[in-house]
């Protein structure tokens, strides 16, 4: 089967004191190549654990993940990862970071230079190629991280709250860039976020997860990502449809949290 298949995955962490935490329970998902799925949920719902399992950093307690028919057993360059922040190599320049994957794969100097030049153009950082990454702003660093991931031409891009540490304005602009890259490259993308608005805007599909045990609560198919590729970001976010869906999901998460807290008067 083509695409990314998550088949009945469960994850149980054993704590040092012998207790157990059900981080994920019977999670099944199927992404066709080129789909963009946003995963949303309150903290502790296992969404990062799910991403780490897809990336191959964790082996699930039960169940399997397959990509294009091959089982995931460890990290591989077919599954690129964009982290929240602090995963760039600060001892390298922007260009060296972007060229890291091809260089590890034994590409020639000329091949690396061509690819890096192109990708730095894509993320509009050409003039910062030779800057050490620690001198770049948070938004620029995340653009380097996106370019670094694309340089390996992965089948799937896994994003773990990649815009979470950015200020609100930069974040809006970056959402537009993520959509553009998704449409231009046709990559399969799994995006973890705790921003309802971001999940709605970017997710062609949206999965809301519930905690304890981490599981899929509800799945949506959404039209906004397609509109966002062409249209004006701000206009989409004030559409009645967008606002109604946002309220629906916010209410859902709110109730979920109330339930966890025992329905108490948690403000």
């Amino acid at each position: 089967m083509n695409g990314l298949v998550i088949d009945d995955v469960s994850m149980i962490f054993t704590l040092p004191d012998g207790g157990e935490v059900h981080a994920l329970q019977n999670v099944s998902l199927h992404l066709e190549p080129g789909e963009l799925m946003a995963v949303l949920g309150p903290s502790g719902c296992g969404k990062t654990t799910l991403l780490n399992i897809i990336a191959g950093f964790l082996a699930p307690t039960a169940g399997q993940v397959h990509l294009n028919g091959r089982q995931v057993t460890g990290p591989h360059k077919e599954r690129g990862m964009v982290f929240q922040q602090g995963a760039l190599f600060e001892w390298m320049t922007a260009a060296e970071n972007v060229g890291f994957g091809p260089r590890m794969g034994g590409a020639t100097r000329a091949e690396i230079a061509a690819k890096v030049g192109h990708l730095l153009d894509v993320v509009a950082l050409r003039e910062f190629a030779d800057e050490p990454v620690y001198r770049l702003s948070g938004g620029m660093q995340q653009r380097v991280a996106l370019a670094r991931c694309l340089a390996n031409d992965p089948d799937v891009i896994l994003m773990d709250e990649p815009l979470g540490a950015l200020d609100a304005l930069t974040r809006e602009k970056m959402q537009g860039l993520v959509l553009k890259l998704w449409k231009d490259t046709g990559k399969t993308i799994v995006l973890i976020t705790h921003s309802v608005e971001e999940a709605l805007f970017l997710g062609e599909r949206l999965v809301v997860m519930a905690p304890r045990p981490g599981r899929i609560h509800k799945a949506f198919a959404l039209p906004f990502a397609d509109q966002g590729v062409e249209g004006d970001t701000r206009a989409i976010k004030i559409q009645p449809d967008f606002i109604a869906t946002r309220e629906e999901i916010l209410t859902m998460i709110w109730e979920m949290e109330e339930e966890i807290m025992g329905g108490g008067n948690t403000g």
Partner: protein
Amino acid sequence: MADRKQPSKLAVWLGVADNPFTRQKTVKFGDASAVNSGRLWSVATVAALLFAWWAVTRWGLLDPIFWPPLDGGLYPWDNPARARPGVVDRFASLVVEGYRNVPLWEHVWTSVRRVLLGVLCGALAGIPLGFAMGLNSVARGLLDPVVEFIRPIPPLALIPLVILWLGIDEAAKTFLLFLAALFIMLIAARAGVSSVRISKVHAAYSLGASKPQVLRYVILPNALPEIFTGLRTSMGVCWGTLVAAELVAADQGVGSMMMVAKNFLQTDVVVIGIILIGVIGFTIEMLMRALEVWLIPWKGKG
């Protein structure tokens, strides 16, 4: 309305006036950045110390055996019979003629060379061992008891044993400094390995890096700031250890020069040695800091 008149640059540099930014702050007590350099007072301190040194010996308040005169103290109106060499004159003669047939720079270089050699050997052995301990549980298990046992022992406590084993020649000193540097470098390298953020390692594997590539391109550069801090600490500790070792037994080096001078009651040479040791230690520290800024500009910016 605040006073708009700005203090002169000289006044700010001397620290008798706050700089224009600090002048705008209303909360100064408790704000460390509002405490200015007070350079004028530093100049005053140095001047007062030098004057006191000059004065106590000039007026014979201290016996030269306990504290040498700053200068010869022979002025045109002085009785030539009172002439005796001061520290300044002695320093000049040490530079020109040397001490006991060995030029001063050779004493200094002998000491510095021993430190550099000891730190180099300690780093060459300690860094790989520290990496092994940080990356491999067998290595950690094997080395941990030794490291934890030797770590709290001051290197000076090893001097008697080292003398028993290797005598008092160069090999003994190098070995002592090697031991002093080894454990500092080992612990620094281990800490450097442990400090790598897991997302960087994950990112490298996801980009297709192999284990050796992760070691070479992620873990090693990530550990360099800690390794450099280890080098700086080793230099300081080795310098202190070496001077002590030279005081115990040596035929060359700043420490040995001072011990010989003590036997001849040449307090001025002893004092010059003390000042030299301070100046060299300070210079090493400054050079290492400059090297760090130059070689590891990304330190603390991950």
